[in-house]
């Protein structure tokens, strides 16, 4: 069998095979991230990759090129590997976009994998996203590679001579200033000219057993409640016409040993309440982060509660998905958005 393969590769049919492969590089439809938009441009009317024989097509079995479009996450890496293994030989990989190279803007993200660690890569196309021309250039270079058997970078960078110097003892300070003991105030009051808001605050104060009701800006109201009375507050708000949850948020405050759980309520059905966002928040202890879920009452909060559980490990009691990873990969780090999970810091000097 090996002899046969060797014959096909190097025998008299070799050039025919090379020619066929060169002009028929079909990328598999494997959209991995946002660079897919530029990939579509490269194969749509504007640039038309079909001109040079590349037709974006179906699935792995019938194609011979994977274009990795940007970020490969821990979850997607597995799919990339499977796609690569499903693909018949000869097969090629082009990685486009900074995210797929060294991570680009997500270089220190906790959920990213380098595609070059997963599959062998033939060409890298920089950019965020790369222009369609750049992608087509990648395909062109791949064609040259198939033809000549030698990969070539499509640019040369003229070099000037410079003498290497010494790194000084003191390096410039990084620009980031991060407070050691942050004071996180969610309901910082703000003076605004908002008559309806005053009325609304009075109404809320009367109806809800809240610790405080503050106007934090035009159309923004923050209500501080006890953690066990979030459900009660939500029922009251629903009666008032706040019919959906726009945002579920958790803020980790390790130096005060608490999580702040926020629900942003808003309304679609009552015209006056449409622009208003009511932020109902409560402090919960960091060592036992549990709060009642609102997913039954507000289905719009369901997925965001699952997400927050992934990120912070806050248990929303009553949500059926607690304890199972939803957004994160099974092998992702635990509770990555907690402040004690540190990311790699920037380096400014080589």
């Amino acid at each position, binding site marked *: 069998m090996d002899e046969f393969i060797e014959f096909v590769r190097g025998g008299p049919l070799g050039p*025919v*095979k090379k020619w*066929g*492969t*060169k002009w*028929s590089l079909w990328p598999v439809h494997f959209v991995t991230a946002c660079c897919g938009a530029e990939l579509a441009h490269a194969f749509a009317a504007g640039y038309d990759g*079909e001109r*040079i024989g590349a037709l974006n097509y179906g*699935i792995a079995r019938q194609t011979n090129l994977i274009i990795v479009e940007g970020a490969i996450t821990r979850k997607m890496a597995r799919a990339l590997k499977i796609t690569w293994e499903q693909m018949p*030989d000869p097969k090629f990989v082009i990685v486009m976009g900074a995210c797929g190279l060294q991570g680009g803007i997500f270089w220190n993200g906790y959920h990213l994998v380098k595609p070059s660690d997963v599959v062998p890569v033939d060409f890298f196309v920089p950019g965020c996203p790369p222009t369609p021309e750049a992608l087509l250039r990648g395909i062109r270079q791949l064609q040259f590679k198939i033809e000549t058997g030698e990969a070539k970078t499509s640019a040369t960078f003229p070099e000037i001579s410079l003498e290497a110097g010494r790194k000084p003892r003191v390096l410039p300070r990084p620009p980031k200033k991060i407070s050691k003991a942050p004071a996180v105030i969610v309901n910082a009051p703000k003076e605004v000219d908002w008559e309806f808001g005053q009325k609304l605050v009075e109404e809320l104060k009367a109806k809800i057993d809240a610790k405080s009701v503050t106007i934090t800006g035009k159309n923004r109201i923050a209500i501080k409640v006890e953690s066990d009375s979030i459900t009660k507050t939500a029922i009251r708000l629903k009666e008032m016409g706040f019919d959906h949850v726009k945002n579920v948020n958790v803020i980790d405050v390790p130096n005060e040993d608490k999580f702040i759980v926020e629900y942003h309520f808003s309304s679609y059905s009552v015209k006056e309440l449409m622009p208003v966002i009511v932020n109902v928040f409560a402090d919960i202890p960091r060592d036992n982060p549990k709060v009642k879920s609102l997913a039954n009452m507000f289905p719009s909060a369901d997925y965001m509660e699952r997400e927050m559980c992934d990120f912070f490990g806050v248990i929303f009691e009553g949500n059926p998905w607690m304890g199972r990873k939803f957004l994160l990969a099974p092998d992702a780090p635990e509770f990555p958005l907690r402040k004690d999970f540190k990311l790699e810091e920037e380096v400014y000097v080589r």
Partner: protein
Amino acid sequence: MMDVINYLFETFSSNMMDIPLIAPIVDFLLKIPVINFIVALILWKPFFAVIIMPGLVVLTLYLLYVVWYERKLTARIQWRVGPLEVARPIRGAIQALADGIRYFFQEAIVHREAHRPYFVQLPILAFIPILLPIMFIPAGSAVGIYTPYSIQLTVTFIALIPITIVAMGWASNSRFAYIGSVREAFMYFAYEVPFIIAVISMIFLYGSGDAYVAVEKQSAIPGALLNPIAFIVYIIAMLMATSRLPFEIPEADQEIAFGPFVEYSGILFGLAMVLAYEKLYIMTLLFTILFLGGWSGPYCPLLGDLNGPLWMFIKTIVVISILVIVRSIYARYRLDQALRIGWTSMLALSIAALVVGGALGVWLS
């Protein structure tokens, strides 16, 4: 031994295509031993019909042409260029060849879950119902096997093709292949009845299932004008049968990832993928005979017997070239909608066509 060869040679040379244009060359070649046998075989009418024209050779050329032409026309409508750089002077006309070569040399994977023998055999087996009808479809004087039931026989063999596709889906043993097979089977139900009724209406009209009779009857007015309802039904049924858009339901790459062909790769996929085009070819041959006067056309004395096949081929190519435009016009219908179209409007139309065909047939005879 020599007797057998001589006998065969006699048989072949007695029933040869008479083409005045190449007659001197043929005459010269016939004098050379061994080669004369081959030449006689090639020009032997049944062999010529099945292997050369409108059979295998032309079918291959047609495939290369239609794949390129379809991509090029689609590209033209879509404000772009289509295959080009592979051969710029001839507008990329050999793109399909490049793709074919690539498929041929690519690894053909048989996955673990597949039913190995059938998985490998079926794309090749599927050629049988493709080639069989060609044997019975006459093209002028070139005919594989003459029978007065050629139209019926062709329709029967066409009906066999979906079975091979369903079997491919079964052998693939994958989720999407399974759904694709079921869809293929359903589509089969959607078009087969109106299609057969439309053909029967034309048989009624001509009073015979003999292609020669059908072509003869169309010498004044083509069948398309005699029975336009059957004409429309046939076209729609043809689109459904060859899973062209808007009825590309069994393959539906965005929904079920090429359905029955999802696991095929390399040359096996290449074979499976051209099935639909081959089917289109066969059905268009029949279409030409039934509705467009078959091989009749201006007679060129230089071509002699080649006139018939050539005209038939030209008509077929023209029809297909017009038909492939639907790919860039329509979206894909849903399965239930296609079935509804098949069993309501198309069935009604086909029955109307049957009535028209019957009435005309009685009147004509």
